[in-house]
């Protein structure tokens, strides 16, 4: 996942999901699941975003908590598919 794609994902989370803080607080290791930013529906919105923006296909069995815990984890998931 290149820097541009990661920044787009950061923007997507801030604009579209349950993000109430300042944008600078959304660091690569911010706990997205524990803080409730990513709920079960948001995962599918993120998958849709990744498939559209990064041209990857995320299989259903990859939709496990560890792959969505942080921005860094999501980036790693995308890189494993690229």
């Amino acid at each position: 996942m290149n820097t541009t794609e990661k920044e787009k994902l950061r923007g997507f989370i801030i604009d579209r999901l349950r993000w109430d803080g300042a944008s600078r607080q959304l660091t690569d290791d911010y706990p997205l699941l524990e803080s409730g930013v990513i709920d079960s529906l948001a995962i599918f919105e993120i998958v849709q975003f990744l498939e559209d923006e990064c041209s990857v296909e995320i299989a259903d069995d990859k939709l496990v908590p560890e792959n969505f815990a942080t921005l860094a984890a999501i980036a790693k998931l995308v890189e494993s598919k690229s």
Partner: protein
Amino acid sequence: MDFELTDEQRMFRDEVVRFARAELNEDVVARDAQSAFAEKEWRKCAKLGIQGLPVPSEYGGEDADPLTIMVAMEALGYGCKDNGLIFSLNAQMWACEMPILLFGNEEQKRTYLPALCDGSLVAAHGMTEPGSGSDAFSLSTTAESRGDHWILNGSKTFVTNAPIADLFVVFATTDRSKGWAGLCAFLIERGAPGFSVGPPLEKMGLRTSPIAELFLEDCEVPAKNLLGKPGGGMSAFNSSMEWERSCILASTVGAMQRQLERCIDYAAERKQYGQPIGAFQAISHTIVDMKLRVETARLLLYRLGWLMSRREATPLDSALVKLYLSESYVSSGLEAIQVHGGYGYMAEYELERELRDAIGSRIYSGTSEIQRNVAAAFMGLGR
């Protein structure tokens, strides 16, 4: 965009209609009154390949593509008047076979899928609990790992097929504080220690599809019966719901077509004030609206099948199909009764049952309100 069916799809559709009319419609009024499941007909459906439609041939299925599945289920709904039987088939296919197919290991697939396809096993899906329905991931059934087995405690309700099922796909959490991230899916066979099924629950419609509660009291499940990874329950649930939302109401397009044709025939035969009632615009316009509804429903459904085959379908597409088909089915049922007047209200005319069967479609597999929530989220709204 070409929605012309292939010769094979047309032939299969015609075969399913012939089969359903000849084999599945015996004593439906009486079975509805008695809440009786059509066990013999279930096996006949398996022999034709209905239960195996989405399953690859290496596991005993038909390996059908999404559009062919939808066409076949539409044909089943057109030919078969036992909506409860079709609902039970759908409950097994989408909420049990699909999670096993998508998340099961090779041993689990080979153990269960061939028997589910050939009709020798019946499966049920336990997610909903007395305290968690639309907010499905707030469930309270717990799972605790004990090395070579798991211990489950809790209860499930509104479990379609539970009274007759041999195999259960059951969801539980390893840690409630984790929400969806703590969810696990398990395969539980009837007779497992600590597992029991409650008495059948009475319901408004779909009465030939049995439903009951499940009870798990220190229920012992072998470790090998975990379906997917620990924490992977949400994915197993959501992906099977995606298939369910997409396909479960395909049969209602066939049922709406059947209602439409009955209304046209009745409007031509029935005379009042010296002419067929179809000559009155109050009737003809109602029937035109029914026609418009079934045509748009079919287009929306086939478009989704086409998108699924191209791997381009999104939860927005499936939510819209579920929402539109369920609301259309209820409207069609109401209008069919209105066109038939007093006769439509009588059980022997089988239209009142169709309406009772239809109402559940606005509730099961995610209510119409939840479908609107999903659609809104994917349209960038409503969070």
